[in-house]
């Protein structure tokens, strides 16, 4: 795919042209931290941000999303009929998404876009969105993307990868959507020779990643051995069962569906859910198959680092963004857990020793 180049002095002009055809979304700062939001008239994305506090997951998959609305008023002909909620699926651009968050969108798609089930809300929002990534030249110390199947210049899930280069951006255009983005902005679409520069910059950025995980033995590990391992009490002791790790995670996809009725007007909404919450698995009988904190913590790490690995054969369900590491209120660290799980001997090895 071609590499194009445009001057930063043309950035704002280009964005203003894009605003006529797209909704723009990007990172902005508030009270010292960054988050993604729809950009207002003349509002610019803040590319000085290391990374946003919450991931970009919510752009395609909002924390609360109305699906249907209905009326319980029996004087109306269409009472008790579920109707689609009208939503804006017009073209949209996410500016400055980090490669980790973009790769995560691709992993989340495995859940929302399968041969059997196609989630209409997630897919329509995803199809409407152009992902314009910003390569990561200053990864954080808690980032471990290069050993989590990703990297600061990773391209999966992106339509364009922007590389900040002094007074201009180099843009690696990766898809048709990406070409339309450059064209609509009015930037020069002539290909330039930037491959070696981007390659050098990629190597330099990857060398700055100081944090790593080992995942090579997870796929071969015996599931029940991992499940029954003695590591979980130590790992789970401090967990307070909040949803921070799952809500800040770009790859956690679980949701809960709720009906809410006010007077005679109702709506059906889906909200992010968290396997850390005790109520997540409560049956209607009252029985909870994951009633203990240890079981819930084990579930989260087994899903990300074992069940997902086995089911999809696409690596771990983690892109190494480091958000759960830096935001867990009690410092439970997935890097440490991953090492513990990866280091457990396979049952064959135990048998061989006997």
């Amino acid at each position: 795919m071609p590499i194009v180049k445009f001057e930063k002095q043309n950035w704002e002009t280009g964005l203003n042209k894009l605003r006529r055809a797209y909704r723009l979304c990007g990172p902005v700062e508030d009270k010292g931290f960054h988050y993604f939001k729809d950009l207002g008239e003349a509002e610019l994305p803040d590319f000085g941000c290391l990374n946003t506090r919450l991931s970009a997951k919510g752009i395609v998959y909002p924390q609360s999303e109305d699906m249907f609305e209905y009326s319980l008023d029996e004087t109306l002909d269409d009472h008790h009929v579920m109707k689609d909620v009208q939503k804006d699926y017009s073209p949209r651009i996410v500016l400055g998404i980090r490669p980790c968050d973009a790769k995560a969108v691709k992993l989340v798609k495995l859940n929302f876009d399968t041969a059997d089930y196609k989630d209409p809300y997630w897919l329509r929002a995803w199809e409407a969105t152009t992902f314009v990534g910003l390569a990561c030249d200053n990864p954080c110390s808690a980032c471990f993307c290069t050993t989590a199947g990703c990297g600061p210049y990773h391209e999966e899930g992106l339509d364009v990868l922007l590389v900040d280069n002094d007074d201009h951006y180099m843009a690696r255009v990766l898809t048709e959507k990406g070409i339309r983005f450059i064209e609509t902005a009015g930037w020069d679409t002539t290909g330039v020779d930037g491959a070696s520069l981007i390659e050098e910059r990629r190597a330099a950025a990857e060398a700055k990643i100081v944090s790593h995980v080992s995942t090579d033995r997870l796929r071969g590990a015996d599931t029940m051995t991992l499940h029954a391992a003695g590591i979980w009490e130590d790992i789970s002791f401090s967990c307070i069962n909040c949803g921070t790790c799952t809500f800040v995670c770009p790859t956690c996809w679980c949701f809960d569906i709720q009906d809410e009725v006010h007077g005679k007007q109702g709506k059906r909404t889906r909200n992010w859910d968290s396997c850390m919450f005790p109520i997540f698995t409560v049956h209607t009988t009252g029985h909870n198959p994951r009633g203990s904190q240890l079981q819930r913590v084990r579930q989260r790490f087994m899903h990300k680092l074992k069940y997902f690995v086995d089911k999809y054969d696409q690596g771990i369900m983690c892109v190494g963004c480091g958000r759960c590491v830096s935001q867990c209120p009690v410092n439970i660290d997935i890097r440490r857990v991953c090492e513990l799980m990866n280091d457990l001997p396979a049952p064959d090895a135990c048998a061989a020793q006997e």
Partner: protein
Amino acid sequence: MSEYTESIREIAKRLLETCSVEMIIGFRKGTVPMMNEPHVIRNARDTGDLVWDSNCGINLANYLTDRKENIGILAKGCDSRNIVTHILENKIKREQLVIIGVPCKGMIDKRKITRMFNGEILEVLEDNGQILIRGNGFDTRLDKADVLQENCALCTHRNPVIYDELAAELVGEQEDIDRYEDVRKLEAMTTEEKWAYFDDLLKECIRCYACKNACPLCYCPTCFVDESKPQWVGKSQDAIDIRTFHFLRAFHCAGRCTDCGACQRACPVGINMRVFTKKLEKDCLDLFDWEAGMSLESRPPLDVYRPDDPDKFIK
């Protein structure tokens, strides 16, 4: 306070070796700057994992609820007051506990420090009342007094109120502290101003419930936010439901909150929900001359009747 670590390890080792307790609840060194992890030690040979410094702000009383073991637990002033509250509320028995008191000089505010620098902070150390901060493009010292968590800066009970062992000499208590300046400002607001203030305060809430789950007072088997029959509160990002959660949670803490700050510290988006609990704390002080968790001898104001109750409706 890092100088406490050695003495804490010695006490923990002795308690485990003499079988005085089955486990020690303390902290181990964190994997990121300004964080330590609540940790349990069951074997005397592991006591070297225990640490103490100005990043032990999580309230360890939270880890005692309904435990059956004999437990050694580290307790700074606020933890000890929540241990008292736990004992009064029958969530743990006094005789199960060996309380290792930790006279506290305050915890540092990781969010405040993070905001002070443009680049990422890579290492934070402490040295005799100073905090050493190294990061991308800076290497500096700050006075710890300037970067304390707000609740610690306003703390008047740094020493444990109940203990069996002491990790260090008791420290002087802070005097002439005006604990309620923020509450008075809030009380002086008009209804509209309060509404706007709460709106801004809570707008970033993601309903992860880290605040209530880090709180030692929140131990209900099923929290009201999780009840479904009836469902007291909606589960979406609706602003009214978010307010309902925070207001109700705060009221459940009335007369019990010690302003340990674990809720605000735990919040991933840094909401100061302590303004709610502090208002109730001030009310309890004004109406009942009550400070939570100070003694095993007196019952909390909301579970006793007194003939001199200031409210008329109850007489």
